[in-house]
């Protein structure tokens, strides 16, 4: 999946009003005032390409880059709180001890290229909701709690409800994504992340993230999330169920991979057919489990 634009006739954005709020409150007021007319400008690494192609023509841009109070990482109550403005590149090295930081670092190196990671933001990626976005898959894997704010209040949206379909989230036009909260996985949690793309830095044709524990020699609390195969990041509940309590190893990993490939509703497009994506899910799920057990 990933963004495909093609309109060689026009490569300059349409005009807009530029608003640079000095505080979060001011930003929220602008969004309340302009509603559907306005767009939040975060890293600009998805929005500006869309504007250059005139696929997006917001009348107003509310630039949140000056709001450094939205750029923070905090650990509280077994949660990692990620401010919306934290740049992708921040995660290249683990931002916290343990499997959560490790998993984020494993995924970070796949998010576009270095210059994209320097600007692009964690929250911007979630709000953009590309089904092949690494952060969306991680959010779905770990059941992220997405914290939003508008001038009329705030909400907590579970990742499962947040991602609705391609480029579509539960966010209202006047609502800002403030923070993503991820669980700090216990130190014995094994994590794996695998994806396939044709060229380094491209959006992946498919990606798989897994997390699980091993208790008394059995796989416990398995989570499997998939990206790039459907209109939004998915979990693979049947595969999770079947591997729960199994002996970790090649046979159970293969069986889970087989189930994941079967249960998902894969979408075909010009980059790959649905059945090709299923094949990828099968291979990547197995590899993600193997990776998890070998390196963590």
């Amino acid at each position, binding site marked *: 999946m990933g963004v495909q*634009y093609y309109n060689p006739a026009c*490569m*300059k*954005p*349409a*005009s*807009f*009003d*530029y*608003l*640079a709020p000095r505080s979060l409150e001011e930003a929220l007021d602008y969004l309340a005032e302009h509603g559907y007319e306005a767009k939040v*400008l975060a890293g*600009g*690494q998805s929005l*500006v*390409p869309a*504007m*250059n*192609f005139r696929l997006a023509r917001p009348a*107003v*841009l509310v*630039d949140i*880059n000056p709001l450094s109070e939205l750029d923070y990482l905090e650990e509280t109550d077994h949660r990692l709180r990620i401010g919306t403005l934290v740049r992708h590149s921040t995660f290249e090295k683990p931002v916290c001890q343990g499997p959560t930081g490790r998993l984020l670092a494993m995924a970070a*190196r796949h998010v*576009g*290229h*270095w*210059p*994209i990671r*320097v*600007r692009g933001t964690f929250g911007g990626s979630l709000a953009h909701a590309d089904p092949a976005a690494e952060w969306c898959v991680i959010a779905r894997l770990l059941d992220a709690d997405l914290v939003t704010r508008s001038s009329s209040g705030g909400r907590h949206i579970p990742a499962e409800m947040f991602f609705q379909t391609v480029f579509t989230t539960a966010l209202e036009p006047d609502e800002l994504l403030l923070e993503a909260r991820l669980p700090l996985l216990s130190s014995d949690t094994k994590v794996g992340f695998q994806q396939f793309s044709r*060229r*380094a*830095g491209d959006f992946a044709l498919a990606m798989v993230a897994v997390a699980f524990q091993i208790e008394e020699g059995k796989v416990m609390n398995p989570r499997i999330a998939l990206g790039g195969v459907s209109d939004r990041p998915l979990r693979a509940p049947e595969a999770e169920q079947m591997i729960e309590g199994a002996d970790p190893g090649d046979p159970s990993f293969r069986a889970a991979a087989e189930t994941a490939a079967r249960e998902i509703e894969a979408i075909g497009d010009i980059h790959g057919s649905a059945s090709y994506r299923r094949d990828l899910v099968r291979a990547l799920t197995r590899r993600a489990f193997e990776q998890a057990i070998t390196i963590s």
Partner: protein
Amino acid sequence: MSNRTEVEVRLNVNGRDYRVRVEPRRTLADTLRDNCGLTGTHLGCEHGVCGACTILADGEPVRACLMFAVQCEGMELRTVEGLADGDRLHPLQQAFWENHGLQCGFCTPGFLMLATGYLEQRPEPDEEELKEMLSSNLCRCTGYQNILKAVKQAAAEMRG
């Protein structure tokens, strides 16, 4: 601050201040080229894929086609024009020359700025890291091998 019509923006590029009047929709790349006369920053795809427009903003490589000039007040911007010291080429420019790291040269400013940012942060890169970094930008001519060679040579030279 709100305006669809032109606004005044102060840009600091290669240590020099430029006062320009631009519409908010004017990208940083277009502003550098058309308003500052710094045409070394090239535009290939204008949607973040090719890297021809890569410059350094506060020491980090960014796609100048994906930023607006109005966002860049107060940033320290560096473009390919700022690399050479008079007639003395920057070690990366010299190394590209010596290793035939360019053919048509369209991608070269972007690669130079990408590699400058990289080597300033990581003076002792390994080959795999270098390849991954260079995959950020597209070159249609060289096949990358000579670019890689040039960056390795420059890295050694810059370490002294």
